[in-house]
């Protein structure tokens, strides 16, 4: 677009021709346990999810291999899902179990099925364009104490994002500065580690006193310690230790997505709060609701940026930026054949910024401003402000 020779070009690149290999979260398992077939948009298509009589959740491609009927609009009959078009019955193993009007079922009546797992009350499927066997050794981390009732019920949200590749969401892992500008929080310590199929962000921050909304709702009284880890390409567990005026809360934020096309994805986020000792359920639910609102607002701040930005393969960085190139190199492992994963994609990389010193300066500046204001107020004969 630009003609100046020294002007930098934005390389928008080519979106991937496939979807990420790994475990993908489809949502809270309980939402699928009502005896009906459910539809999930995923990977340029649709999936059907239902519970069988044994209580197992099954996931198949949504379209009947007979004439393409939409199984999500059918019915659960016994253990199978029945197509609304001609009542073909499909089992969780992907095989057609019965065709009520036919003498026998064709031998080739097999459809695409997905291996499932339940972790943290959520349903996962294994997806791999190469068709590899599900790797249960890399299932996301099961939160200790969750099954034992130590946490509030999940508050779960689903948002469709149109016009963005899901890598925009991943980029946030390394994007230190956006927490300040988009979420109004002030990072003091920031750390990334990428290794194997895991990518971690560790951050300590406070709310910005000059902004309202986002993570600064409570101003500088809010001290936030956050550890977020991606377990594979799409499922992040974020531990948040919030200290508000000495009141400490442990919040778990799940941030997970399913790519629906190269240019859209479904974002799901869930929040739970560890029940403090001796606190009644209503208060815990109230706190959970508060944080759901706060972090929900945080996501919407991101979404607004994504919807209006363009893809950039060649971001220009300043020395205060996080390691977005290394993060994308890590993310690439899920988009190549397993045999094509090169060591750089999975080798351990650490990036650390400790701005404690810079913040000392920042806090001194604020203190100096407050001193000046107090002196001016005193000279003007105003009462001392508290």
């Amino acid at each position, binding site marked *: 677009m630009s003609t100046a020779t020294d002007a930098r070009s934005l390389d928008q690149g080519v979106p991937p021709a496939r979807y990420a290999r790994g475990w993908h979260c489809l949502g809270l398992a309980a939402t699928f346990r009502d005896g009906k077939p459910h539809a999930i948009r995923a990977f340029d298509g649709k999936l059907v999810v239902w519970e069988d009589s044994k209580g197992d959740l099954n996931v198949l491609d949504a379209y009947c291999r007979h004439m393409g009927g939409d199984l999500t609009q059918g019915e659960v009959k016994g253990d199978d899902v029945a197509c609304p078009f001609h009542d073909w019955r499909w089992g969780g193993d992907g095989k057609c179990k019965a065709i009520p009007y036919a003498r026998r079922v064709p031998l080739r009546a097999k459809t695409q099925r997905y291996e499932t797992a339940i972790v943290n009350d959520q349903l996962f499927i294994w997806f791999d364009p190469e068709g590899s066997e599900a790797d249960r050794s890399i299932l996301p981390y099961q939160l200790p104490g969750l099954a034992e009732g130590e946490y509030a019920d999940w508050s779960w949200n689903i948002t469709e994002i149109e016009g963005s590749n899901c890598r925009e969401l991943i980029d946030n892992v390394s994007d230190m500065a956006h927490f300040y500008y988009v979420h109004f929080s002030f990072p003091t310590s920031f750390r990334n*580690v990428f290794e194997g199929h895991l990518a971690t962000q560790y951050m300590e921050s406070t709310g910005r006193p000059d902004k309202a909304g986002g993570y600064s709702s409570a101003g500088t009284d809010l001290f936030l310690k956050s550890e977020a880890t991606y377990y594979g390409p799409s499922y992040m567990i974020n531990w948040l230790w919030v200290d508000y005026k000495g009141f400490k809360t442990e919040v778990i934020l799940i941030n997970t997505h399913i790519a629906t096309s190269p240019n859209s994805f479904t974002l799901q986020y869930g929040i739970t709060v560890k029940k403090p000792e001796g606190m009644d359920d209503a208060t815990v639910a109230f706190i959970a609701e508060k944080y759901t609102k706060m972090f929900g607002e945080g996501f919407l701040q991101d979404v607004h940026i994504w919807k209006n930005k363009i893809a950039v393969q060649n971001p220009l960085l300043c020395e205060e930026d996080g390691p977005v*190139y290394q993060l994308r190199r890590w993310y690439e492992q899920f988009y190549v054949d397993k045999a094509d994963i090169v060591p750089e994609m999975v080798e*351990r990389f650490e*990036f650390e910024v400790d701005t404690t*010193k*810079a913040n000392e300066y920042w806090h001194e500046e604020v203190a100096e401003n407050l001193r000046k204001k107090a002196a001016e107020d005193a000279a003007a004969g105003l009462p001392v402000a508290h």
Partner: protein
Amino acid sequence: MVSFAPTSSETVEDQRRYTQARLVEVACLDCLAVVRVKKNSEHQTSIQWDSTSLEHCTEFARAASQPEGRPIRVGCSRLRSSIEQAVKDGAIEVGAEDGY
């Protein structure tokens, strides 16, 4: 297989610049691990490991033998000291070159 393919050769050079340039080898003072390090400023550090250095790190090996395994967030304190020493010795140049 095409994934997030750049459309310009300059992008490939940027990828090299941001991930490979100015990394300096630092040998741990306590074990045989050799990693590559870059410091954009006093308070910033990048550490690039490889499979060999990871195998050599005794602190990581100890952490891995714990029942809960080695948490990936935690770095090696001995390596951190070794890097600090390398900075003091002037082996690592502190400062970025036009943002990388």
